[in-house]
């Protein structure tokens, strides 16, 4: 499934100077290429192979090929599909609001507002924090007794609050909010950079012609922003679908598996129960989904911005 992506549509420009000097190129490339092959490409292919075996951790009997048995089992594994569904809800539930919020923030930050420097600096703070710390921090916010959320609700007379991360109904929405918060900076920064591409003169001309803010956004800003918006949304979907640390720290997948993302599920399968082959098969299914997203994204890019 890597083939459609590894053949990018470049190479139209003539080579700068490759002739006869290929060994020099190899000399420059090899130091990075070897680790990439050994620790990235190799393991990926190895992982795909593992998914067709009964590999287990710490077993002495030799590992055997079992064909598509893992995938057949997976098909009937309702727990996995429930986790998969939660993963999709999580990925979309985080990515979409995150995009809208980040777009609003980026538009504000590109305005000539006072204190803009402070806002720009603060807006990237979540990015700098280790995911584990983000998880810990929000646990403190959500804490039923000592947390600020319940205290604020009590102050506002909105009831006594609740144990957000342990409630069956509230756990997933609660972690989704954290996911939105944690990914805001990357999205905002990408959109902010995209906004710098929007032709300022066009904007002013449209304003002179009496176009309102919304018209100007639709007609001038959005077309210029679209390629970046598409890229960052696709990346966010993928990153969120593959995310692990945040939810691991917040809920460890609980309560009752309500926040068990596919990554957490596969992690437990592999490193708690030692089912390497089966977990690898789960990984393959996840790659398949991610590839579809990536394909849609690449197709959209080819159709949209020509400068890709």
């Amino acid at each position: 499934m890597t083939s459609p992506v590894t053949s990018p549509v470049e190479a139209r420009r003539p080579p700068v100077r490759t002739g006869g000097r290929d060994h020099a190129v190899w000399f420059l490339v090899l130091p990075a290429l070897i680790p990439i092959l050994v620790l990235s490409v190799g393991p990926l292919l190895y992982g795909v192979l593992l998914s067709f075996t009964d590999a287990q951790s710490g077993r002495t009997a030799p590992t055997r090929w079992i064909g598509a048995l893992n995938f057949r089992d997976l098909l009937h594994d309702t727990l996995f599909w429930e986790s998969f569904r939660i993963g999709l809800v999580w990925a979309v539930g985080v990515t979409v609001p995150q995009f809208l919020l980040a777009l609003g923030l980026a538009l504000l930050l590109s305005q000539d507002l006072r204190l803009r420097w402070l806002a720009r600096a603060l807006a990237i703070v979540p990015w700098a924090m280790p995911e584990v710390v983000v998880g810990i921090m929000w646990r403190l916010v959500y804490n039923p007794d000592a947390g600020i959320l319940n205290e604020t609700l009590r102050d506002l007379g909105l009831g006594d609050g609740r144990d957000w991360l342990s409630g069956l109904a509230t756990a997933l929405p609660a972690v989704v909010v954290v996911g939105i918060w944690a990914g805001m900076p990357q999205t905002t920064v990408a959109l902010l950079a995209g906004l710098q591409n929007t032709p300022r003169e066009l904007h002013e001309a449209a304003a002179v012609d009496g176009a309102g803010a919304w018209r100007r956004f639709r007609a001038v800003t959005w077309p210029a922003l679209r390629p970046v918006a598409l890229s960052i949304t696709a990346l966010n979907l993928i990153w969120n679908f593959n995310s692990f640390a945040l939810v691991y720290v917040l809920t460890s997948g609980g309560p009752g598996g309500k926040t068990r993302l596919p990554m957490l599920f596969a992690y437990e399968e592999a490193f708690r129960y030692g089912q390497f082959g089966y977990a690898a098969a789960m990984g393959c299914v996840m790659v398949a989904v991610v590839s579809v997203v990536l394909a849609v994204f690449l197709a959209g890019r080819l159709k949209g911005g020509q400068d890709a």
Partner: protein
Amino acid sequence: MRTRPAARAGQYAALLAYLIFLAFPFLWLLSTAFKPPRELGSLHPTWIPHRPTLANFRQAFDEQPLLHAALNSLLAALGAAVIAVLIATPMAYVMARHRTWPARAASGWVVVSQAFPFVLVIIPLFLVLKRLRLIDSLAGLTLVYVVWSLPFALWMLVGYVRAVPVELEEAAAVDGAGRLRTLVSVTAPLLAPGIAATALFAFVTAWNEFFFALVLLKSPGNQTLPVVLTHFIGAEGVADLGPLAAAAFLATLPSLVVFALLQRRITGGLIAGAVKS
């Protein structure tokens, strides 16, 4: 000038709302870190601690080997950052300047690696590192961090190399400078700020990383800061809030410092290259 006062007021109100949303969890972390146990147990927690204390920090260091873990994190992150830029810079140069197939394959890999679910990589990686006897070792983790930070490093560096005009290199070549000479005395100095920024990014990525460290390191003496932080949260999810907040705050400081250094580059369009290139 063109914006009406009402609209402007609305913009400031919206900006304020964003800032509150982005800042309040961090302020709460700070507030919790400086609160004495009695206030943490109170049913009506306040934003400002009545009697701020440093006891939580002392207790955090007593409860968990934070210094040792920070040292482990520092070694892995520094090693990863240095090695990553050392091997990524030449490769990025080739990717930016040449259209040979390894360069194109590398560009493809950069895209594809964004889509890796780590779970598909981590199991074989675990087995490979076990075979190389690099499991449960900082050296092994550092290697993994090098590879794991390479896609983004390459992405950034390719952009920086493209920004160096080819004409400069050609002029040096005309003046009789050899290929290596050109790279070392013309291209490298121009790339230096970009390389520094890339190294800082690689450092933060490794410093913050959790998943690989969780899986690959077993003995407590080897564990990095994020893994040790999770030990503050007990098996039943009950945590000693004060020390937890204090330790979490300390673990964030290095990344915050690096991001403060990088702030201009980040909001100034550094990522533009990364997303569009």
